[in-house]
């Protein structure tokens, strides 16, 4: 639509990209050097890069165990979100008497910060006997209100005639969701997967309270724990930051084209 100035635009975007990437570089640089990091001025390039900080982290923290815990919780959250949110969103596309009330309830639930409800939430989890279990860790994350509305919007964008035709053919509601709505709402699914993954992967307060056993800790907890406990070997701290971020970044880079393209293109079609 607009022509001209591609160089100016590239220049601006390159500066923006540099700002976005610099923190990554700075932390990585610190992770692979051994200089006294409190010395001034810092060096721009790593001097004598070495991998030993990573080795230290590997042996100080049960990294594979934390990774496994994080993966399990995230997978549960992703499956929960994709399935439960689709169900709820489908229900919301129907007309029923209490619908206004339900929507209002969901919208106001969105406004309750989870951190502020942690003690009652903990007591409830204790009551149903899920403390220190994967299910207990994942349960509050199994359904997300924002994602329900994303599904709802996608379902509503599916041409009404298609659903009607399916219903005329005598398809059950389950089948309508599975065979008509979901295949047409791929971007919504992708968004659900990614957001559920990000939110569960990063959740910090809840696992902190709910896990009792060191074997149940997830990566963010490992990171926070490392922060206070190994602070005298700060190079190792940044090595650990790199190790914690790597899996998430890898998954994101592999999924991002589907995610971004799906989201933008899919939305235009609707």
């Amino acid at each position, binding site marked *: 639509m607009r022509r001209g100035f591609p160089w100016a635009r590239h220049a601006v975007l390159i500066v923006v990209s540099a700002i976005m990437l610099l923190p990554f570089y700075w932390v990585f640089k610190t992770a692979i050097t051994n200089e006294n990091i409190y010395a001034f001025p810092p060096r721009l390039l790593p001097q004598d890069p070495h991998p030993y900080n990573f080795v230290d982290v590997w042996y100080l923290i049960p990294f594979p165990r934390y990774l496994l815990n994080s993966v399990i919780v995230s997978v549960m959250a992703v499956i929960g979100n994709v399935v439960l949110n689709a169900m709820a969103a489908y229900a919301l596309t129907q007309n029923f008497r209490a619908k206004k009330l339900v929507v209002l309830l969901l919208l106001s639930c969105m406004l309750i910060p989870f951190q502020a409800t942690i003690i009652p939430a903990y007591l409830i989890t204790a009551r149903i006997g899920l*403390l220190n279990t994967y299910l207990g860790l994942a349960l509050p994350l199994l359904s997300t209100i924002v994602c329900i509305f994303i599904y709802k919007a996608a379902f509503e964008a599916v041409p009404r005639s298609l659903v009607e035709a399916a219903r005329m053919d005598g398809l059950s509601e389950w089948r309508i969701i599975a065979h008509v709505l979901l295949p047409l709402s791929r971007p919504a699914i992708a968004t659900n997967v990614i957001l559920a993954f990000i939110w569960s992967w990063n959740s910090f307060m809840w696992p902190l309270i709910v896990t009792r056993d060191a074997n149940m800790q997830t990566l963010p907890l490992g990171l926070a724990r490392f922060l206070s406990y190994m602070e005298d070997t700060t190079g190792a701290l940044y090595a650990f930051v790199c190790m914690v971020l790597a899996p998430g970044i890898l998954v994101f880079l592999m999924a991002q084209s589907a995610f971004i393209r799906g989201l933008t293109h899919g939305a235009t079609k609707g």
Partner: protein
Amino acid sequence: MLSRRTLLKASAVMPAALAAPAIGQTRRSISFLTWNIIDQEPLIRGWIASFQRANPGVEVEWLDKKGPELPPFYQTQLAAGTPPDVVNTQGALWLEYAASGALMDMTPRLAAEPEVKNRFNANYLSNWTLQGRNYMLPFYITKTLLFYNKTMFQRAGLSGPPQSFDDILAFAGRMAQGESTGFLTLNFDWLYWPLFAMNGVDLLTPDLRRPAFNTPKAIEVLEKLARASESGAINKISWTGRWVEPNGAFAAGNVGMLHAHSPAYFFVRGQGNWVNGDTLGVAHAPGNFSTPNSHGLGVSRGSRNPDLAWAFVKHVTANEQAGQLATQRRILTGNTQVDQALLASLRSEDPLVHSVLSTQIEHTDKMVGNWPMPQDARVKDAFWPELQSALLGRKSARQALADAERRVGRELSRA
């Protein structure tokens, strides 16, 4: 394996949602919550093993949480009625718990077993007393001291450690130049209080009912500190950093003095290549004042096996176990015999560590900043931000202390 257990548990429990909490206490089992000493895992596992040998059939669950996480964890467990039986706290955190009835009163048990009570340094033991009752036993002990950089002292023509508050400021001023600053202190948990104590300033009236710090002398001290911070004689990290930043700055080698508790030594030596017996000086703060920041062991009142928990506390603080901790971690335990033995062996082995640790059991009658008041945390939160505003030049000293007096008074009156 774990996921299958989870699944089984979930399917069994979900229908009966109102079943009792999962952490069953039907067997003879206790849990032991420690404060960030996961590095001593083999040691603690060993203690548990020997405790189990002495008490067959007993299970001990060990939990370790890092500093900022322990209070939320312990408090949610308290609220759920499943507190860890034995808990290790740092500083004055226990006061809040003791005052709200979370901790078992150990006084009768100590009276019944004087040999346990006599293990400990009496001055340290009394740090865990609230209204005449003893709620905790020492696990490992620390208090503040003054480290100084001898090289910088020499360069500035100074021969020994400062002898008064004004010395501290004067020395600091002489060493402050360019990148160098003269003085640093840790500031959390009242660790800076010796600076006020050496000027005769008290926080509260002796009955701990009313603030007593808003005096002309206190204003003068605060003004001096603020001015020195402004000029660079006192490093501003003193009032903003917590643990890493001040110790890291001192370890970098261009800060003259560090007022900190003994664990700072190990941090500084780990970071600073310059640290050895010829370059690092160790002294008491002027007036021999210091603020303790020790670790204690208590038993939760909600414990279902208080006798077992008490036995475990005795086991951990006994000579053998405490001795292992002391030698492994190079730390004093408050157990008099153990500490003597450690210091004796360090005297030749590592004289610098010896001189650092020696300060910890000297002048134990001059400990300050350890007021036994149940609202300690609230008073701290009311007082410190005001003081910080004055130290960093945001408010006048007079104004800050007046505001602090009002807020501290309010906290005290509410209890």
